[in-house]
């Protein structure tokens, strides 16, 4: 039983591609847009992969056509609302970054780079001699 169709699979793939491409940018607002598109893609994926489409899952007297699977719908509904909350949070984050630093870009973390170079410098230092006298040494704490 295949609940997904080729069109929907392509739409989901396209949304993921666009979303991730935007998330790989440095502008926080673009990252937010990427997040929104990823949210759309994921909700759609949940729905189309989770169960077969059909009549709305509302119990009614008439109708014998198969109903759509309600469980993925409930999950996607939850996901939609959570995505909304997270999106607004990220927008606020981008706004704060813009207010405080004058831009909303994610810069490289200089501290991370410094870790490598600082340790390298320390490593190149000719440290104190490690004299070994019968097993006990008085070397410096590196």
């Amino acid at each position, binding site marked *: 039983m295949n609940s997904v169709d080729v069109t929907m699979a392509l*739409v989901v793939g396209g949304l993921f591609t666009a979303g991730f491409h935007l998330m790989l940018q440095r502008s926080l607002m673009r990252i937010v847009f990427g997040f*929104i598109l990823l949210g759309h893609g994921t909700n759609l994926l949940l729905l189309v992969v989770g169960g077969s489409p059909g009549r709305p*899952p509302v119990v009614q007297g008439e109708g014998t056509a198969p109903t759509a699977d309600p469980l993925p719908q409930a999950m*996607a509904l939850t996901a939609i609302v959570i995505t909304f909350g997270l999106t607004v949070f990220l927008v606020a984050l981008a706004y704060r970054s813009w207010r405080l630093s004058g831009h909303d870009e994610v810069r490289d973390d200089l501290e991370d780079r410094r870790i490598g170079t600082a*340790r390298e410098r320390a490593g190149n230092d000719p440290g104190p001699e490690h004299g070994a006298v*019968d097993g*006990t040494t008085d*070397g410096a704490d590196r």
Partner: protein
Amino acid sequence: MLFLLAAHAGVAAAIPWWQRRLGRAVWIVAALVPLATVAWAGTWTAEVLDGGDHRESLSWAPALGLTIDLRLDALSLLMLWIVAGVGALVLLYCRYYVERDAGRQAALLLAFAGTMAGLVLADNLFVLYVFWELTTVASFLLIQQRGEREEERRAARQALLVTTAGGLVMLLGFIMLGQAAGTYRVSEILADPPRGGTVSAAVVLVLIGAFAKSGQMPLHGWLPAAMVAPTPVSAYLHAAAMVKAGVYLVARLAPALAEVPPWRPMVLAVGLTTMVLAAWRALRATDLKLLLAYGTISELGMLTALLGAGTRTAALAGTVMLLAHAAFKAALFLTVGILDHRTGTRDIRELSGAGRRMPVLCAVAVLAAASMAGLPPLLGFVGKEAALEAFWKGTDIGGNELLGVALVIGSVLTVAYAARFVTGAFGGRPNAAVDGAERPEPGFVAPVAVLSAAGLVLGVGHAATAAVTTAYADVYPPGPHGPYELSLWHGFTPVLGLSALTLLLGALVHAVGPGRWAVPRLPDVQRAFDRATAGLDRLATVVTRHTQVGSLPVYLTVLLVTLVAVPGVALAAAAPSPGSPPLWWSPVEPFLAVVILGAAAAVVATRYRLTGVLLAGAAGYGVAAVFVVRGAPDLALTQFLVETMTLAMVVFVLRRMPPRFSPGRVRRRARLVRAAAAGAVGVLVTCFALVASAARTAPAISTEYARQAAETGAKNVVNAIIVDFRALDTVGEIAVLLVTAVGVMSLVRVRGAEERIPGGGAPGTFPTAHWDEPARTWLPGAGERPGGERSVLLEVATRLLFPSILLLSLFLLFSGHYRPGGGFSGGLVAGLAFVLRYLVGGRADLGAAVRVPAGAVAGSGLMLAAGVGLAPLAFGGVPLESALVTVRPPLLGTVEIATNLFFDVGVYLLVVGVVLKLLSGVGVSLEHDGTPADGEREGSHR
């Protein structure tokens, strides 16, 4: 046993407080605990030596097989006496030795005594492991002291690294051993030893751990370095007790595993090599503690070889030597401690004449050293005789001549360094350093004397010693010459000759020894350890530099590439059939697909923020349409509303930000890599979507839901799932919403609290303008904006529509149980009504519409939902259970109300509250909040 261990821990925890009141007397209190342990163990002597044992067990998590099993048998009894007996004496000795930080030291020493007791009593491999590592921790803390001196920190770190690394290897071995045996109880493994290849590997791993703990070469480097610790610590941990843990483990497992292939060669080769080489090193040492440390390593090597050999005579010799070594080595260490304490030095070259200045101490030390050298009638002699018997005649171990020769050489060197110790410490004429030294008090020397005398008493009374040690050795069958008996006199045997030969040669080595000819130096493992740690540091730097580049896009690219490479390749390798998916479910879908994908592509391409958010919204509406087509009206409704709400909120924020994205300069290659990574993930997700639904094997569990939904009185199954079947998810979800709203509030308020928005009031509330003041103004806030910016028509229409929209939202809420709708969509519709009021009429108009703080609305929603969820508990139900109540109000006829409707009302209130809170955050707060930080100007003109 459990009580004893608890007593150690409890008293150790209380000691720092007692120490402030009792002063030095606290050491006597501390010593009482190990003394009680000795006495308690004594009460079980008769039973244990008859081959019985005493067990206790505490179930901790029996379902996981985690029980604290303790067992007292002959070997444990012997070890317990050593651990607790030496411990009590060392604690008494500390009363005179320790001058500062006594509370900490006493507590740690006692805690160590407790963990060591636990280690020797443990009958479960995991319990043993835990105590094993606890002793390492105690050792670390005792070596490091307060960490004030560089070399203390260094030695402590080295000891910790080497022994815990060994411990981890050992744990791996334990697990393999336990899996092979099918049990982790030591007594059961001993009763039914496992065999096989896994066990051989386990043996290697366990022995590595034991060797690291007992300072066997080449893992011995930490033990001499640890001599920076105070002398009582060296005497107790690094001579008598902790380093014996490895030997104990060897002795414990040898009866079961000695026949497993690599055990015997490993134990004998490593043990005897260590014995000879470390004794050699001891001859070079000029620091008395270092001399004793190498002596300890040497003796531990002999013990490892003897106890691991797996024959009765060797085991007997091993246990005797275990006892002898604990007594004489602790005594010698404590002697050095007294010398050091009174003269201020422990260097052979500086000490001279201490024997004349402190004759009692000298006599005591000579007695202990004689036991170490193996002079009759001391215990060391009894042990050495048995050892020579075991290896020289070595009835059932192959290659015994070599073993015997190694043992003899080791013994010769032992005699030599024992002589070197005595002459070095006490010989010569008194010099200035020694002459002014104060004589030690009787109480200071007494513990040393007790330990030294123990060697004599146990040697002369070898019958009693034999009773204790033979009980363990008897697990092995006696050799072809019958069971070996401990004795001071076996007649004129070759072993007696060898014993005399070792003494003679040892004296000779000492006589012509160091001073006359330089003892050749051996390669130093300390340097290897230093190089290894420095290399590890460098490796860490290199790895950090190459992996932590600090760029978010690079990290994300790595994640995506991993996603494609690992699950993607797995997916491709499994090559599942996608079935035969139709091209589309409904002919509308391709058109919607074009809209969605077109909008998404346009978002990627646009340079304007506002355009971006509008296009993202367009994609969202397209997705909502797909939901309609595929029979998910609830989803579609929510998606439409959420999309609108997102749009409004993002626009509120964007109005304060520049219209265009800051122009970025991205290299072409980087752009290509990003596009490729994103595209690959897209392809992966497409393929996943195609095969995932075809991979379903079981029918959907939701087929039952339609029937169950009818039972709850619901017709809309999705709503029934949200408010009933999976209501706990919903509670979590709305809580998350509330948290994000609070987060948004705190994020957008960049300024401090002193810079309030004019007229803003308390956070979370709206301006206090009321629509009925002044009384004649029907449209409040009319004075806020110039007339050109306002549309009276729109404002009036909004005011008129507002109640209708709220009514619609209530309808959605109450009909959600039967038709598409529910708390979420109802709340969102109501929220949009407020957004409209704010957009058209400004904040004052919003203030007129909402008189309650947003936080109160949201909070009451969460409270209501949680309360409804918990209410069934009061009626004896399960949480989140719902019931159907039928009421017959006049005029309306029969109305059925499910209690979970109130849950949905809670969701509704929460969503409304969150929207209001967000409005006050990104709407009202930002109105007067337009200029970015000072850095903005240069930032935007970069």
